């Protein structure tokens, strides 16, 4: 570590000015849980650190009529506290609660999770399933970019020199809509996710799957939308056959993607189970063979349909 200059930015303009002034020599530090290790192991070599973890406006979560907007420096603990009790957002709560340990969740930020761009970043799949939109700010102004387009490669995101990720927003969930998350492995503190899926599901008044978005973690260079699984489910009655079919389609897709890798055999099977779990979580069995999206009111299944 060869750090010469450090700044605790008070607001976004100050952070942007510093990033602009120091260019390639500078990096943002938020919770520090990825970058401090990288600096100590010399994987990242910069001489200037700009701390954004004390910028108040980046630590807010706001729900408006149409959007939920979260500041980039919001921690996982803050995500869990904010959405607590809102079952429709269980995928966000669960993904946050599975990150590291309490100490890590108290420091680690959602912006850092995205910008670090690990294939195993836990918060990325649920945000992809919510089709999140990011705001990036730099000297030249603001721009919006979809999370899916922001992730370029393992460890690489669409941030130009001097730019800061400031907010992450998604359309507020309504009745019949829910996002869920399922991760493989024991619920063990500090186990970095090996494989996960997140599902966004919207059920219409006819009990059909009106909209669905599926995303995965650790089965590609970064978190990915799994469109074949989405296409397989969309418009269908959410019965066992339709869900099983979608999980097979996803498994085949993963097999194609990972062909030749030692992890392929395992992951193509594991993804099926993990996907089924995420879909199941999005539905509540009503005891009479009918399902409803979790966190919403009872959705009666039209008589005679099963």
């Amino acid at each position, binding site marked *: 570590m060869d750090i010469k200059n450090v700044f605790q930015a008070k607001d976004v303009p100050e952070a942007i000015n510093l990033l602009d002034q120091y260019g390639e020599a500078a990096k943002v530090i938020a919770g*520090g849980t990825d970058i401090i290790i990288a600096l100590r192991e010399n994987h990242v070599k910069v001489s200037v*650190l700009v*701390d954004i973890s*004390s910028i108040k406006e980046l630590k807010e979560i706001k729900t408006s009529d149409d959007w939920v907007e979260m500041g980039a420096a919001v921690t996982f603990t803050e995500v869990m506290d904010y959405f607590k009790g809102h079952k429709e957002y269980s995928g966000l709560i669960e993904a946050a609660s599975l990150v590291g*340990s309490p100490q890590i969740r108290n420091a680690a930020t959602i912006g850092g999770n995205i910008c670090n761009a690990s294939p195993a970043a836990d918060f990325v799949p649920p945000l992809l399933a919510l089709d999140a939109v990011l705001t990036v700010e730099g000297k030249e102004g603001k721009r919006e970019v979809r999370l899916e387009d922001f992730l370029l490669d393992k460890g690489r995101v669409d941030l130009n020199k001097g730019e800061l990720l400031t907010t992450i927003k998604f359309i507020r969930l309504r009745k019949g809509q829910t996002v869920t998350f399922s991760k493989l492995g024991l619920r063990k503190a500090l186990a970095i996710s090996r494989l996960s899926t997140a599902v966004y599901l919207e059920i219409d008044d006819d009990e059909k799957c009106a909209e669905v978005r599926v995303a995965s973690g650790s089965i590609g260079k970064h978190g990915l939308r799994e469109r074949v699984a989405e296409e397989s489910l969309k418009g269908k009655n959410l019965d066992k056959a339709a869900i099983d079919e979608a999980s097979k389609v996803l498994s085949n897709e993963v097999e194609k993607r990972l062909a030749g890798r030692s992890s392929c055999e395992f992951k193509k099977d594991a993804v099926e189970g993990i996907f089924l779990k995420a879909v199941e979580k999005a539905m509540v069995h009503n005891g009479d063979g009918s399902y409803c999206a979790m966190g919403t009111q009872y959705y009666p299944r039209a008589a005679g349909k099963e």
Partner: protein
Amino acid sequence: MKTINVKINGENYTREINEDMRLLDFIRDELKLYGTKEGCGEGECGACTVIMDGVTVNSCMVMAFQANNKEILTIEGMEDEKGLHPIQQAFLDEGAVQCGFCIPGMVLSAKALLDKNPKPSRKEIKEGISGNLCRCTGYNKIVDSIEKASQYLEGEDQ
């Protein structure tokens, strides 16, 4: 060099620090508060746990300059003029301390947990200390002491 102001265990400090210093190094090497331990140095073990602005963090995962204008509690700040903190007393009463290396971090994680949730279940206690590794005790006695501490604190409140 960079100047920072930090409140540690109720006392204000203004100090010059090296830019590349971690909060853990600042606490141990500058302030000579040796109760905060370095185990792994990578956020895994929790031996370096401190409470910063009300929440536990691994001080090996925080740069010292980031602690500017923050309020920090280390294990040294748990005791007051009346003696040990009830959580510390509970650890002794239950015989939960063996080599002691993990204990400062355990006690601070227990405090953060009990501040937020005064009557945790055993499961919640285990979750609360899941970022603190212990090589000696097998955790049961530590969980017992946090249950006992919860009772001690309840008694104090009455």
